[in-house]
Each structure stands twice: as structure tokens, then as C-alpha cells.
């Protein structure tokens, strides 16, 4: 993914002289993850700015740049260090267009490597996307694959609004795929079609979901995997179509459960698709704790935990409603729902889940 991001930056800087990159250690060092490697030599110091250690100043300066014609792409060294820029992002960038009656806009991208799995402990593992998803005026992208990263970064740079662009750092070197150019346009993507459960995720967790789905498939459960890609705006259609088809929703993310974006996803899904649900939606998320070091794999939503949830979801919807003590309730409800959904389930071609279409990349990615 690193190469895909670097390629997108270089391509867009070549195409548009107003694009500049700014961040800590992004010039001479090429970024701690080398995403900006070679850009300094190619585009010079004026457009590749090694900034002082001041995230708020970097983002604040980028806002000013964006207000006068540049297209700044900020690198925050780790998403964990984005908080000194929180005020600038939440109170300034997010509100600029609205508060000025669209006299000013902030076409800025803030890239930040996020997520765990690299033994980074508290401060090199965080997934702060929910903070930004709750901030009207900000867009939040979170690509999971190299080609998505490439396409989405190009789109983010060209977007008239500020985009917080999280990069799953665990995937930086782990995932490679042959380059392909396509548009993402803030649409979710069905990575794997399935009949039984809609598993919705983003970022590195996608790969855990895929692994869990394989295991589930061996047990006869077909999990449809949806990679949101864009959290804000949210592609409700793809979600709703899938959930109405499967009747079961499972949300997976690395960020702590409580108050995470998963809550919003569940709430929205339930609000929009209550009648189609065969079981309570479930969430598998990071633990409600600072990201731990020694036990980081336990803290993360692993394929195992996802698989357990998949099984629970099937079990509950087919055998019993959760926590209920009323036998009649389960039965009649299930009967009712099962009946209700027959119509929807049978004509699979209408379900909107086109198997094998260009949005389905099953197997195309390999985790290294």
C-alpha cells in the first residue's frame, strides 16, 4: 500500500502544481513509513515541507494554504498524534465552508497511519476515526487495499472538502496487488458475497473478516463482506441492500467499542432495516481500553472473535432470540421473519449483490 500511496501523491503533484505535502520527517527521511520517499528530490523543498513538531500548526497552516488556492496533503506521523490538531480540524477546517457561507473552503487531506498490529502500544496503534465521523464538515476515508488507497487518495485530494484519510498501517507492506485504476467515489465495496450475514468493516479489520468468512464458509455459513472505504459520507445503499438480503449484520472495527463508529452503523442499519433483521446486529471491536502492548492481538477484533460472533449470530437468529425467557416469542418472531424474508431472499439477482462484478475482488489481494 505504501507504493500505491506514494504513486498517487507523485501523480497528483505532477498533475497539479498546487498540491503540496507537509508533515514531520516527510522530506529527507521520506516519512517514517516511507510514503513520501523521493518526493523531496522530485518536487523540491517548497512542495515537500519538513515541518516542526507541531501538528496543530501544521494542520492550521494547511487550512490557510487551502483557503488560498493550494491543495495541501498533511501527513500526521501516527493517527495517535492527531489530537494536537483536533481544534484546528473540528473547530476550523470542519466549519469553514458553512460558517463563511461558502466564501471559503478547505480542500485539504490529512493522512494518518492508523490501527494496531505492529506492536505499537498506546501511541502507535490508535483508531480515532469515530471522533472525526462525529464532526460534520469532515469526510473520513479509510481504504483497506492498495488500489483503493490509490484511487481514494486521488479523489480526496481533488475533493472540495477536508478529508481525514486513515491508512491501515498494518497493511502498508503486508498487502500487495497488481495496480488497477478505478473510481471509488465514496462507495462501499462488497469484497465477498454471501447469503447469511452482512459483515461490515473497514481498514485492516477487513482481512480478519475475510479470514473469519473463510472459516465460516467451511461450516456452511456464507458471510458477505462489505468494506465501507468511506465512513463519511456513508454508502447506505450498499449496506442496506446487503442487510436486507441477509437479515443479519455484524460490524467490525479496531477502535474501542463504546462510542465507536460501529454504534452509528448499527443504529443506522436498525433504523433503516428493522423489518428485515433476523437477529440483533452485533459488533466486534477493539477493547474499551488504551491500546495495549503485550496483548495487542487479544485486544484487536481477531478472525477468531469475528468467527465466534458469526456463529452466535446464526445461532441466535435460528435457535433463540438473545436473553429472552419467552419461548413463544422466539418462535413466533422467527417464523414471522423467516416468512417475511422469503420473497426478498429468493430472487438473488435482485438483491443488488452482484457476484463477481468489478467490485468484487475476492482473492485478488494477498496478505504477505
Amino acid at each position: 500500500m505504501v507504493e500505491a500511496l506514494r504513486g498517487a501523491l507523485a501523480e497528483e503533484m505532477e498533475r497539479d502544481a498546487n498540491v503540496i505535502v507537509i508533515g514531520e520527517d516527510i522530506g529527507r527521511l521520506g516519512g517514517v513509513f516511507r510514503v513520501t520517499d523521493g518526493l523531496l528530490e522530485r518536487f523540491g523543498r517548497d512542495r515537500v515541507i519538513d515541518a516542526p513538531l507541531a501538528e496543530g500548526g501544521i494542520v492550521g497552516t494547511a487550512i490557510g494554504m487551502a483557503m488560498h488556492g493550494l491543495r495541501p496533503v498533511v501527513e500526521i506521523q501516527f493517527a495517535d498524534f492527531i489530537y494536537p490538531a483536533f481544534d484546528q480540524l473540528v473547530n476550523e477546517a470542519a466549519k469553514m465552508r458553512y460558517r463563511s457561507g461558502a466564501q471559503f473552503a478547505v480542500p485539504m487531506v490529512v493522512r494518518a497511519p492508523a490501527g494496531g498490529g505492529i506492536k505499537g502500544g498506546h501511541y502507535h496503534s490508535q483508531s480515532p476515526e469515530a471522533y472525526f465521523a462525529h464532526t460534520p464538515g469532515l469526510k473520513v476515508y479509510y481504504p483497506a487495499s492498495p488500489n483503493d488507497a490509490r484511487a481514494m487518495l486521488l479523489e480526496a485530494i481533488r475533493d472540495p472538502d477536508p478529508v481525514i484519510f486513515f491508512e491501515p498501517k498494518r497493511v502498508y507492506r503486508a498487502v500487495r496487488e497488481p495496480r488497477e485504476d478505478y473510481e471509488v467515489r465514496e462507495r462501499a465495496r462488497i469484497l465477498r458475497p454471501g447469503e447469511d450475514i452482512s459483515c461490515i468493516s473497514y481498514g485492516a479489520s477487513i482481512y480478519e473478516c475475510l479470514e473469519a468468512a473463510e472459516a465460516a464458509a467451511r461450516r456452511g455459513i456464507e458471510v458477505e463482506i462489505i468494506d465501507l472505504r468511506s465512513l463519511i459520507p456513508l454508502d447506505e445503499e450498499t449496506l442496506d441492500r446487503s442487510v436486507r438480503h441477509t437479515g443479519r449484520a455484524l460490524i467490525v472495527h479496531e477502535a474501542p467499542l463504546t462510542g465507536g463508529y460501529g454504534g452509528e452503523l448499527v443504529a443506522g442499519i436498525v433504523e433503516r432495516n428493522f423489518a428485515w433483521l433476523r437477529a440483533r446486529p452485533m459488533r466486534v471491536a477493539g477493547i474499551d481500553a488504551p491500546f495495549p502492548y503485550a496483548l495487542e492481538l487479544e485486544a484487536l477484533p481477531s478472525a477468531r472473535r469475528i468467527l465466534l460472533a458469526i456463529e452466535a449470530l446464526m445461532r441466535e437468529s435460528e435457535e433463540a432470540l438473545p436473553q429472552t425467557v419467552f419461548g413463544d416469542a422466539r418462535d413466533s418472531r422467527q417464523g414471522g421473519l423467516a416468512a417475511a424474508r422469503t420473497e426478498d431472499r429468493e430472487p438473488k439477482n435482485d438483491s443488488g449483490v452482484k457476484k463477481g462484478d468489478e467490485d468484487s475482488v475476492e482473492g485478488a489481494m494477498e496478505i504477505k
Partner: protein
Amino acid sequence: MGGTIAVERILGEGGALIREPLLRIERRFVVYEAMLRQRRFDTIMMRAQRQGRIGFHLGSEGEEAAILGVAEALADTDFLVPCYRESAALFHRGFPIESFVDQSVGNARDVNRGRQMPVHFSSADHRCLSVSAPIGTQIPHAVGVGYAAKMRDERIAVAVFFGDGATSSQGFHEGLTLAAALEVPVVFFCRNNRYAISLPVEEQCRAETLVDKAVGYGIPAYRVDGDDVLAVHFRACKALAEARSARRPIFIELLTYRRGAHSSSDDPTRYRSEVPPRDPIQIFRDHLYTLEAFDEEAIGRRIDAFDRDLRAMLRRAEAAPKPSIESIVEGVYAKPTRTQLRQLEAIQAAREL
């Protein structure tokens, strides 16, 4: 140390000039009139607030020289990055006062579409960024605008304003740090009006002066008597010219005094009782009296006319329609989200209840 930097002055005892100003005589009358107009403006708006006609006002009583001295020095192509107390500077660039009044009322004609509190003005047409309440956040924006101008090879300067209290903020530190590192054509105007709401500057900062702070960033700094409009104009001209040509940041502390309340929400009798220094309008007037062409009466008539005009503007602003209900979700993003559209529907339904 900074404490030894002398305070620059041009206006001496009895209106005599200590050194030759850069402001031509005809323009002195214009600036004086702008100062008077601003004072009248603030008085009327503050009264309108007391009467409940507008929700809030924040004036610049006592700081007109500091603000207008700089405004007069700006070229049209320069950027103005205001704090919140510099409406006079925006008016001086030709922004219609009626537009400010519309903004204060929050009606449909407001360029900000009624979305911001009064006094949170902005005008892209006048190269004036958007006022926001959080203190100090505009300082890095100015740096960014300056950098963009430099990259685009525009020979312009950026003037950013902030208060003494703002020097404690993150935006100040990060803005000055970035300004020095990126070598931007930005002039930092620190209006030291001696208070951050109730906190005297001595308790904000234990350095002898605020220009001491510039030292730590390697940014050249000046202290100017902010109640001496000719001195402010002089130093602002020099600094802006240097910023435009040498493309580097300069820091200017303008020593002044907030004569009024912090804002219409404030009651300064709770925290201070000292006798204010001499009014900058009086100080300038002493000087204008020494000039033959000074026609105080004509100016007075125009200010009275302005007074009437302003009252009419207020009435018109109040009579103007409220912003449309759609404006509530428009423009958060270039394109509204589905959730926003659903919310708009719910709001409309509730209205019809």
C-alpha cells in the same frame, strides 16, 4: 531582552509630531473619520444589543488607532486575518457596514447565511478570512495563506490580528513556529489591550513585554504605541512592505487599552477599576487641530448622517427574512449528505406541526 525595545511613537504632546509620519495629510482626516465612525458604530450596536435587537456585540472602543492604523497600511491585495475585534479594518477595505449589520441580525442577506454569531464576519471579496471564536486558531491560517501567496509568487503580505491573551494559545505558538520555519510574508499584529476578558496581561505572561515572545521564534519584533495611529500606520507600512519583498514574518506589539467591556456579555466593573489612559481619538484629534485643513464640523455632520444610516440599516436588517430552513444543512459539505436531507425533512415536518 525584549524589555529594552523602545516603544515607537509619532504623536507627541499637544499633537506635535515626534517624527515624520508616512500617512499623508488628506488620509489623516479619512482615518480619523473612520475612527470616529467606528466608535459611533460600536455605541449604536451595543445599544441595539441592550435593546435585544441583536444578540451580541463586541466593540473596539479605545483600539481604533491600533486597528485602523494597520488597515490604512494594507494594500487591497494583502490579506486581512482578523481576530474578532477588527471590524473597523474590514470596513476600511470597503466591506459594507450594512452587511455587518445583516450578519449581526443573522438574516437571509448575511453573507454567512445567519450561521454565525454577530461579529463573526468574513469576506472573500475583501480578502478577509472568517472570524471564529476560538482564540488563536487564525494565526496558523495566516501562515498558510502567506505560504500559498509565496508559492504563487504573489507580492502580498498577510496581516493577522490577535490579542494579548492569545499569546498563551496553541495557535500563537504553532503559528509563529511555522511562520519562522516556512519564511512567510506575515505580519503579526498583537493588540495588547491589557486584558484577556478579566485577566490582566501581567498575569497571562511574566515576560516584561510581549515582543519578548517573538525572540524565541527568531522573528524580528517592534513595539508600537497602539494609541498613536500615525506610529501604528508607520510601522505597519514598513513591516508590510518588508514582508512583501523579503517574504519573512515580523511581529508587532500594539500597546493599547480596551476601554469598554470585553463584549456585550461582560461586566468589567467586576474585575477592574483603574482610570483608563487617554483616548486615542483624542490623541489624534490634538494633532489634527494643528492642521489647517481639518474640518471637524464636516466630519461631525457625516458621522451624524452615518448614525441615521446605521439605524436604518438595523431596521432593514430586522425586516429582512430569516435564512431559509434549507440553509441549515447546506454548505456543511459541498454536497449535503443523506442524513442531512432526512434531518431537514424532519425539521420541516416539525415546523408544520
